[in-house]
């Protein structure tokens, strides 16, 4: 079995933390993993993405071929659209509904929504609002991970939850608690 995941957003939104958590869960589960990241220039408020490949078999390419991503996990709705050519036929898009507007020519929000609504599987929520309600706004990315959990498939929700706890362990109990709440809220929101 294999799962190809594209994580995306705007530089600074915390997509690499999501990658770290999935990576931790995959390693603990004994899966093979490749994770191509973007470092450098585009981290300054530009578009960023990470290709995450999980498999029980050998993984060769660090990058996901077009048409093969099982899930696009996006911190920003327009950024989710950027990677559509990579999405597989039955692939899911899990995204924040809140636009991050730092360019003058940002498209109409309604047009973005219409594009997303055309896809077969979309989960789109205001993750910042949910994070604020159950924890702090800084856990919005973990809410998104919770929403994506059922689509990741190759790892169970419990395995991902365990990885959330382990990744934040160093930052103390309160941070772990907040992020577990955020994760659970994400899971519940799409469940």
């Amino acid at each position: 079995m294999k799962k190809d995941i594209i994580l995306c957003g705007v530089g600074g939104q915390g997509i690499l933390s999501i990658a770290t958590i999935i990576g931790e869960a995959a390693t603990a589960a004994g899966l093979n993993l490749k994770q191509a990241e973007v470092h450098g220039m585009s981290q300054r408020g530009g578009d960023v993405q990470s290709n995450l490949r999980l498999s029980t078999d050998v993984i060769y390419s660090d990058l996901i071929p077009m048409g093969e991503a099982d899930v696009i996990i996006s911190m920003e709705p327009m950024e989710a659209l950027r990677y559509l050519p990579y999405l597989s036929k039955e692939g899911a898009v899990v995204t924040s509904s809140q636009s991050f507007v730092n360019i003058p020519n940002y498209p109409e929000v309604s047009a973005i929504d219409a594009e997303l609504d055309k896809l077969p599987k979309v989960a789109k929520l205001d993750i910042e609002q949910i994070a604020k309600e159950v924890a702090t706004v800084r856990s919005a990315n973990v809410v998104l991970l919770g929403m994506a959990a059922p689509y990741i498939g190759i790892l169970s929700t419990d395995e991902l939850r365990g990885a959330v706890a382990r990744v934040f362990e160093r930052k103390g109990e309160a941070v772990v608690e907040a992020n577990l709440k955020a994760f659970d809220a994400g899971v519940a929101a799409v469940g």
Partner: protein
Amino acid sequence: MKRLLLGDEAIALGALHAGLSGVYAYPGTPSTEITEFIQGDKLARERNVHSRWCTNEKTAMEAALGMSYAGKRALVCMKHVGMNVCADAFVNSAITGCNGGLIVLAADDPSMHSSQNEQDSRFYGKFAMIPVFEPSNQQEAYDMVEEAFALSERLKEPVLMRVVTRLAHSRAAVEIHDAKAENELSPETDRTHWVLLPGNAKRQYAALIEKQPVIAEAAADSEFNRLELCEDEPENKTGVICCGIGYNYVKEAVGNTMNVLKVSQYPLPEKDIVALAAVSENLLVVEDGQPVVEELVRGMLGAGYPVYGRLTGALPRAGELNPDNVAKALGVESNKVYDPSPVLAGRPPQFCQGCGHRDVYNALREVVAEFGDKARVFGDIGCYTLGALPPFTAIDSCVDMGASITMAKGAADAGVHPSIAIIGDSTFTHSGMTGLLDAVNDHSNIVVVISDNLTTGMTGGQDSAGTSKYEAICVALGVDPAHVRVIVPQPTKVEQIKEMIREEIAYPDVSVIIPRRECIQTLARHARQKAAARKQ
């Protein structure tokens, strides 16, 4: 034991476990994480492995050569364009040869994700006539470092290791082993190798030429090169030469159904290429970067044998390899379902909110406008290059590290006025100081703005070599102290900065303006570190 590592980190750990005594580097995407990993590693600290950043790639290369001279294993890391900066030392290190193992690591950036060109460092290896390693994955990167050090010591020659962005910045699990001891101190005793006066240099060059068959044999026997022929004759009669990570894309697309030659050590294993050609009707060369191998293979097989690759259009002439363009070249159909969405805008990188460079450009662009179309602003490389984009559109050039000052000087020599250079603090010490000396000696009518954010911002906030020394450097190089002026760039001071620029444009000799305020990214990081320290 397995560890999840970036390609860069695998190289760093591989080097440490091979008994590294020092890494010498100037930051540059995608190579930066190698040195940063060593800086943060416990074993490296215990062993006191050198890892402090160097002022530029040339100083790094020479210091590493010195450590090798002393008998220890040294690693030099840089992005591809850094090879241009250290080329003099690099090429001549092949003439002197080395003592302790010496690896020069160049991280190429095909597709120019964070660079101004996509030059292929394998050319440099061929140019200097030394072995070149090109790992195909993270595990191989880790394992290869040890082999590369061993080969370097066996041949007494530096070796080049080339990686590309996609390997440097991709993570996978790597099986690691225990660390070997460092080499003992054993400085060279034979001066004739090292004093490259013509008499010695001729002998050394002849010796390097004599080593070529041994270097070729090492690659021919390398565990990293492998001819993989199918058990049954494959349907597809194309043989594929896969260099570095090109191998992964080929395997992703066709699995074990085609005859392939995996190449991760150069010079090219000629026997394997001839053997592959013999069982194939044509060859496809899959290499990331420039068509280095494609040209060589054509020469090897002669005009009658069809060889495809980037030169023939089978693969794109520019840009990095990816699973899609490689699959296409192999005739494998794409599973693509969705076309790019029409509702999409580009999102270029931009200055952080609160960044001091913003205030500098807000002032600069208004003063420049006062001169109609006469003024020119020569830019340089760093975060502040983003001043080229709207809403600032404030610089007219960006070529290579340090070129702002020297181009402004040349343009002023030609009659451009005002001729202004804008350069970052790290770029200034990297390659700006010598150009400033030229300008001082020529009394060039230029204004140099050193936008000092106390760090090497673009590459993630590494220490900057000249911090707290800029005024002293400029004055020592001969700039009149009255025209070395410092100001804090913040929104409330834009008028003051404008006035300062106007005054210095009016001064008909070299002047330097230093707007100085810490990068807000490193400021936040330092605050977090302080808070964490307080908690403990």
